[in-house]
Structures are given as structure tokens and as C-alpha cells.
């Protein structure tokens, strides 16, 4: 492209990023990112944690140093210092739920504070409009600490809109936010766009791609594809087949198979996730095949039964009389936004929190005393959020510790470590430290650690958040193998509503109350033609009206 041509075309281009790289020490976060953003355009960054989205956003906002050049309107900058000049036109909302808020300031005080901080004049009309858009107008005197997760996020958003930015940068604004607040966040962004604002928004949810004008897909520090959602999908339609299969050459996920070689299967319309699979195939990556030997354990049909579990913290009811049943060989999905009561419920089921009201049974035995709880702990496996195992121990030492704590002998331990590392495909990493290996490996070795003592139930707390698409698909395949071949019951929490698709049954919590408990197939029959994101939005709306 000649520079002349560029000049002609650049009339409505607001931002141009040329060969931008960001690195932290030896680690390259993003390499040679180049793209442009038009006026009134919403550009989406989609990719897993560590794919380079945040680093790119931070480079544009001028908060990290970078190599390469960025042109905003006609102003070129190469460093955070030079970016100072344009900072009053750019607004960045960093990642994390309401991290920019101060718990003990009211909404009104937040407005005063941010106005003063930015040196803005008070603009009554505009501020009222923002507050009304976010549905916070009536709550102006409420302290931030008393706002729900969705409200906090909406407040963060309108605060970043306060200086009337020309370019709004949002880093994962919707992660962990309930579906209704999420839709409202999008409405606010769209409204502002109609008033002439541009936005760059990163997300881990593929389903939000349709709300963006154009998207960039990030993978392992590179932009692997750019274009509209339709364009990207059209690019891979030759590789997409109907149905799933197990193969060393092809990836299967979500009722589709992606393969570079032609197959005798019927072709179908791809999803955006397919771009990541096709990209992986083109880099000659192969899916892992999990070999899990079949076991026939004598177990009752119902493994865990909870009757009206209730937990209060002071006046706040975290979980209100929740009934649950875990069946043998079933994947149960526990869904809900941040603060819906998922974590509290899991902690009661794990025996970590005493139960205020209600009964818990494991294998038909009531769990009541301290001794019962120890017994319970010896029969459950747990994979925590972010797979937090001991970072100062190697993978092998971690596994060794967990096995010994469960009373396995040295021989048994060594055999289990060998078996699981081969089955789950991480034997080459045994002597590495957790932070040295990819998130997908951490995920699988955490599962191995939880399986050392052959539990009858496996709890997984958001095991897929932040993990890239390819590793996620491998993980779900693994879970299905585990439940089929070992016959154990699996409970998984996630805030990716779309992942409900892979569960057998889903339970949805909202403000401590169970609002859905149904088989996935039945839900599909009840709401034909909708995907799970839409189904939950429907249910949320129905429950709100009641």
C-alpha cells in the first residue's frame, strides 16, 4: 500500500496501529500488531488470557511502553510520554469488576471525584443522561460497596464516559457480569457510538462478536485474523464439517469438526471459535487423545444430595434453600453471575462452610459432624479457580503432595503420577513449575491432582475461564471421558453461558435463589432455536417480571 493511497483513505480513520509490540522482560505479550479503527466503529478483541489483548489496549491508551508507532488522528506517538497529549480524548476502563471504584464513596461522590480528577466542568445534563442510561439515577446516594457486580460495572463505564472520550477502550467489561447487565452495558456503548464515539472492546466471550463491527482474533501474542464476524466465518467454511469425531488430525467442538483434509462428512456453517481451531491446525498442532481406562465402580445413582441448603452472612442471604442432586456419570453445570451464590454453595458442598440450614448427604450418608466432613473431603476432588496449586513446587512435587495427603503409599503415588501424566498428556512437563507451562497444561494437571485419590465427585470452579479455545475444547472432551469411563459425577461452574451446552444438566442461581434446574436437552426443547446465552436472558427476564 503506497503512502499516497493511505492518505486518501485515512479520512475517517481515527486510530492506526503499526507494528506494535509489547514485552515484559523476556516475555513477548504482543508481537507486531497492526490494524486501524474508523470513526464511530466498534472494534472487538477476542482471545484467551495472555493472548495479548490487554497489552495492546494498554499500548494504545499510553500506559505501557511499546515498540512501533500509533497514530491517533494525525498525531503520532511512540511512547506513553508522547501519548499524554491525547489522553483527554481517550478513556480506558481496565479489567476487573469495578476496580476503579472506591467502596466507601457514593455514586454521586464518584462523579465529583472523577470530574475533579479530570479537571472537568460540571455538566448536569450529560451526567444525568449517563446516570439514567445506566439505570443508576435513583441510587446516587448509595455507597459503591453496596452495589451489585453489574451495577458496579455500569458505574465504572459511565465514569469512563464522563470526559466525553472520542475513543473508549474497555478491557473485558463483561466478564463475570450477569446477562442483563451485560446487555445494558452494550446498550450504553451503542448509544455513545451513535453520538460519534469509537470503541475498542476486548472480550473472552465469542458470542459478543456479533455486537462488534469488526473483530481481531488474538492467540499466543499474535493477531491471527481480522475482519467482520461473517468474513472470518466464511474464511473457514471449507474446513467445517457436521458432527464430532475423535481424530488426531481434526478438532471437534460444539457439534462441529474442523479439518484441513477433506472428510466425507457433510459440511456445515462454522462458528467463530472455528477460526482458532483452523489456525491451530495450520500451525500443525494436533488434538490430544485422552485414554482413560473404564472402571466399574459400585455407586448409588445419586451421589450427592442437598436439601434446602442455606447460608447467611449477617443479614445477607448468600444461598436461600437450595436443593440439588448429583447423579452418577453426569456433568452438572452451575451457572450464575458474580455474587449469585455459586462459590458459597460449592463451599457448603465441599464441607468448607458450616451449613446454616438444610442437610447434605454423600453416598446416602448424612454429613453432619467434623469427622463426617473429613470423610467427605476424602471422597471429593476439587479444582479451584485459576488452578491455584503450589507455585513453588514442580508439577510432580505437587501431585506427590496431594497423593500423600490422601494417604496413598509411595508406590501407589508414583504409579498414579505416571498414569495420569500420560493419560492427560503432560508427562513431559512433570519437572516444570506451574507458571512455566501453558494454562491448558495447568488445567489438566490440576485435574490430575484432584483425581489422585479416586474421588466420586469432582468439583471444578471456573476451570475454563481465560483458557484458550483449543485447550477448552480438549478440557471438555476430557471431562466427558472422565464421567463416562469412571462413572463419577462432575460439578462445574462457569460464567460462559455458552458452555452450558456441554453439560448434561444445568442449575442457574440468581441472588442466592435457584432459578433453573433442568436437563440441557429439555431447555432446548422449551426454547427452540435459541442459544444458551439467549435462553438465560429469557429466563432472567421471566424471573424479573415475577
Amino acid at each position, binding site marked *: 500500500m503506497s503512502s499516497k493511497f493511505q492518505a486518501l483513505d485515512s479520512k475517517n480513520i481515527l486510530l492506526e496501529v503499526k507494528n506494535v509490540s509489547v514485552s515484559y522482560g523476556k516475555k513477548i505479550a504482543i508481537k507486531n500488531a497492526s490494524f486501524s479503527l474508523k470513526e464511530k466503529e466498534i472494534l472487538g478483541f477476542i482471545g484467551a488470557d495472555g493472548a495479548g489483548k490487554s497489552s495492546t489496549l494498554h499500548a494504545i491508551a499510553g500506559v505501557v511502553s511499546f515498540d512501533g508507532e500509533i497514530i491517533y488522528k494525525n498525531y503520532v506517538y511512540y511512547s506513553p510520554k508522547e501519548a499524554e497529549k491525547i489522553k483527554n480524548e481517550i478513556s480506558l476502563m481496565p479489567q476487573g469488576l469495578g476496580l476503579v471504584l472506591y467502596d466507601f464513596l457514593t455514586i454521586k461522590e464518584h462523579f465529583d471525584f472523577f470530574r475533579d480528577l479530570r479537571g472537568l466542568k460540571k455538566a448536569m445534563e450529560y451526567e444525568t443522561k449517563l446516570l439514567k442510561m445506566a439505570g443508576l439515577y435513583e441510587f446516587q446516594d448509595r455507597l459503591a460497596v453496596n452495589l451489585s457486580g453489574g451495577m458496579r460495572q455500569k458505574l465504572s463505564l459511565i465514569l469512563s464516559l464522563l470526559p466525553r472520550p472520542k475513543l473508549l477502550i474497555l478491557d473485558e467489561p463483561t466478564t463475570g457480569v450477569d446477562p442483563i447487565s451485560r446487555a445494558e452495558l452494550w446498550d450504553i456503548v451503542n448509544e455513545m457510538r451513535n453520538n460519534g464515539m469509537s470503541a475498542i472492546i476486548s472480550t473472552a466471550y465469542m458470542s459478543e462478536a456479533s455486537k462488534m463491527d469488526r473483530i481481531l482474533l488474538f492467540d499466543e501474542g499474535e493477531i491471527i485474523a481480522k475482519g467482520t464476524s461473517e468474513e472470518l466465518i466464511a474464511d473457514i467454511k471449507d474446513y467445517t464439517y457436521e458432527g464430532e469425531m475423535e481424530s488426531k488430525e481434526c478438532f471437534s467442538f460444539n457439534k462441529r469438526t474442523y479439518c484441513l483434509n477433506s472428510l466425507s462428512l457433510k459440511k456445515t456453517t462454522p462458528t467463530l471459535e472455528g477460526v482458532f481451531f483452523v489456525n491451530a491446525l495450520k500451525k500443525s498442532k494436533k488434538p490430544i487423545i485422552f485414554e482413560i481406562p473404564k472402571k466399574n465402580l459400585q455407586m448409588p445413582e445419586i451421589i450427592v444430595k442437598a436439601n434446602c441448603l442455606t447460608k447467611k452472612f449477617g443479614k445477607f442471604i448468600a444461598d436461600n434453600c437450595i436443593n440439588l442432586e448429583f447423579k452418577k456419570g453426569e456433568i452438572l453445570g452451575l451457572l450464575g453471575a458474580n455474587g449469585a451464590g455459586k462459590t458459597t454453595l460449592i*463451599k457448603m458442598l*465441599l464441607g*468448607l462452610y458450616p451449613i446454616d440450614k438444610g442437610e447434605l448427604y454423600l453416598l446416602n450418608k448424612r454429613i453432619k459432624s467434623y469427622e463426617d466432613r*473429613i*470423610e467427605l*473431603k*476424602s471422597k*471429593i476432588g*476439587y479444582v*479451584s*479457580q*485459576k488452578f*491455584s*496449586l*503450589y*507455585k*513453588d*513446587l514442580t508439577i510432580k*512435587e505437587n501431585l*506427590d*503432595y*496431594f497423593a*500423600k*495427603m*490422601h*494417604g496413598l503409599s509411595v508406590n501407589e503415588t508414583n504409579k498414579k503420577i505416571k498414569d495420569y501424566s500420560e493419560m492427560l498428556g503432560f508427562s513431559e512437563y512433570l519437572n516444570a513449575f506451574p507458571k512455566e507451562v501453558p494454562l491448558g497444561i495447568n488445567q489438566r494437571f490440576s485435574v490430575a491432582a484432584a483425581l489422585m*485419590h479416586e474421588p466420586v465427585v469432582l468439583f471444578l470452579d471456573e476451570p475454563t475461564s481465560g483458557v484458550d479455545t483449543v485447550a477448552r475444547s480438549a478440557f471438555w472432551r476430557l471431562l466427558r471421558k472422565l464421567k463416562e469411563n469412571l462413572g463419577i459425577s462432575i460439578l462445574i461452574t462457569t460464567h460462559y453461558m455458552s458452555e452450558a451446552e456441554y453439560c448434561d444438566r444445568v442449575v442457574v442461581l440468581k441472588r442466592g435463589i435457584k432459578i433453573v434446574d433442568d436437563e440441557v436437552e429439555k431447555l432446548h426443547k422449551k426454547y427452540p432455536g435459541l442459544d444458551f446465552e439467549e435462553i438465560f436472558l429469557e429466563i432472567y427476564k421471566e424471573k424479573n417480571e415475577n
Partner: protein
Amino acid sequence: MKMSAILKKEFLVFFRNIGLVVFILYAFTLDIYIAGKGIKVTPRNVPIGYVNEADNLIVNKIISSFHKPEFKKPKMFLSEKALKEAIYNKKIMVGIVFDKEFVKNLLSKKEAKLQVLVDATAAAQAEVTLIYLQNILMKFGNNLKLPATIDIIKLFNPNSNTKWFMSLSELMSNITMLGLVLIAVVFVREKENGTWDIMLLMPVRGSLIIFSKILSQVLILMVGITISIGLIVFGAFDTPINGNLFYFYLISFLFAFAIGGIALVIASVSKSVLEVGHLTIVIMLPLIFLSGAWTPISSMSPFIQYLSYLSPLRYYIEATQDIFFRGSSFMDLLPYLGAELLMALVLFYIGYKKIGRLF
């Protein structure tokens, strides 16, 4: 088996934390050495000046007894005014004025008066320097046949070797600090890294986890103490030991558990290692001040003296000094050992109850 798994894990985590290992080694070696060498209560290189209006041999003789290493070579000033100015400008710390009448009064056996000016900014050193001065002047008094003489015999530390006393005091203080930090951190790190729930999910009684975790850190402390005693106390400073080293280890062990109890309280209320640091400083300082590590308890005000019974460090220090310098027997040490055991039991119980609520 399960206990050894916990111990092994905690040791691995400790040794993988190179920064921490280096800091601990420093605190047990170089820091003790610096404290022993650096902190002086006896006067050393004190700049001294004088005004000699009397101009007599006796004055020169007195002046010549202010010599190295305690004093720098005395400087002569021409007037009292110049002397005062020098003190103001920190040129000298002590100024002596011999007035015209001094020698006359001295020889006529009337009361001879000397004017001594001292910069008391560093109060302790000024005080000790004064005592030195008095002693030196007394000698002249003796020569002048005063009716009484004083013979001083120093017990246990005949040369008033401050490095013996200081290095042990610093060691005790460091054990207090490291005990609090290491034991609190071994719990709080689990909170900070998000492994707390996983720890609780082990099918083991909470008491086993708590006890094993503390034991791992107490053992690390004991190794540190051994290094410090071997390399610095016996090695570099050649401190004598008149008692039984075994009793020292015994009381060190008890003390570590007493401190461990306090550390458990810190661990139960802290969410991050940083908070542990803050709380440790707030708790450690009164423990040390009340212990007699730096000032003898007998010279504290009576109320503070009673408070000092609450510091587990008090018994540890008294016992340690007895073991090293006085060579006390087991029976003599029994009150300290008993008090420390009681302290360990009470504090450990409180800490255990407090952290136990989180298990």
C-alpha cells in the same frame, strides 16, 4: 506420613524462595555480627576539648589520661566561649573547663570544682562518658589521698565486652522477628496464593496441618540459631559459654512455640504477606522493649516491670544470659524454663483457637 508430606512441602517452598533464604541467613549471621561490632555503649572516639586557665602540670596530667580508644586527642580551646561554640557545632562532645582556682583549690584540699559540658544528644553515650570522666578524675582524687578507694571487679564479662552482650541481644530480637514472620507467612501465603481452600480440603484434621506447618518453621529457626551460635557467637566473637548449650536449645524451642502462638493470631487476621509485615512490627517492638534485651528490666519503671512478665522474650533472654555468662545449673534455670513453657502453652492455645476458626 501425612505430616512428613507437609514438612517436605514447606521445606521445598522455603528453599525455593531464594530471597527469603538469603534474608534469613543475613539475619542470623551478618546482622548479628554488625550488631555486636557496631553498637557500642562504652565511649569510643569521643571528641573532647578543654580550656586550661589554670595552666598547671596537674591539668596536663589529667588531660593526658583521656586517650584512645575511648577518646580522641583532646583539643585545647582558648576560651570557654570557643569551647561552647565547638560543642554547638558538633566539633567536640565533651568540654572541660579548668578555671584559675582549680589547681589552687585542689592542692589546698578544699573542694575543687571542674566545669564539664556534655553534648547530650546521644543521651546514653553522654551518660556513660560522664561516668568515665568521673572515674578518671577520681583516680586523681585517690592520688591525692582521699580516705577511701574503690576496687571494681566485673563478674561474668570481665572486660565488659559489649559484643558478647549485644550479639546475643540481637540474636534474640531476630529470633522473635523471624519466628513471627515465618510462622505467620506459612499460613498467609496459602491465602495469598489462593491455595487456602485446597489446604482445607485435605482429608486431615486441621490440628495436624497447623502443627506440622509450625513445626516446619520452628525447625528452620533452630537451624538458623545453630548457624548463628556456631559462626558468629562462638566463631567470630569467641563468646564463652559457662552453662549447658542443651538448655539453650530447649528454651529456644519453647520460645519458638510461644512466638508461634502470636504468629497464629497474626496469620488469622492477615490477608496478605504485607499485612503480616505490618502487624509483626507493631507486635514485635513492645515484645523486645519489655524483654530487657536492651535495657535491664530492673531499671524500668515499676509498672513497665510488671508488664515485662508478659513478654515471652524476657524469660528467654534471662535464661540465655544465665546459660552463657553465669553458667547456671538446671535448677537455677527452672523458673525461666517453667515460665516459658507456660507462655508457650497459653499463647499457642490462643493462636490455635484463633486460626482454628478458619479451618
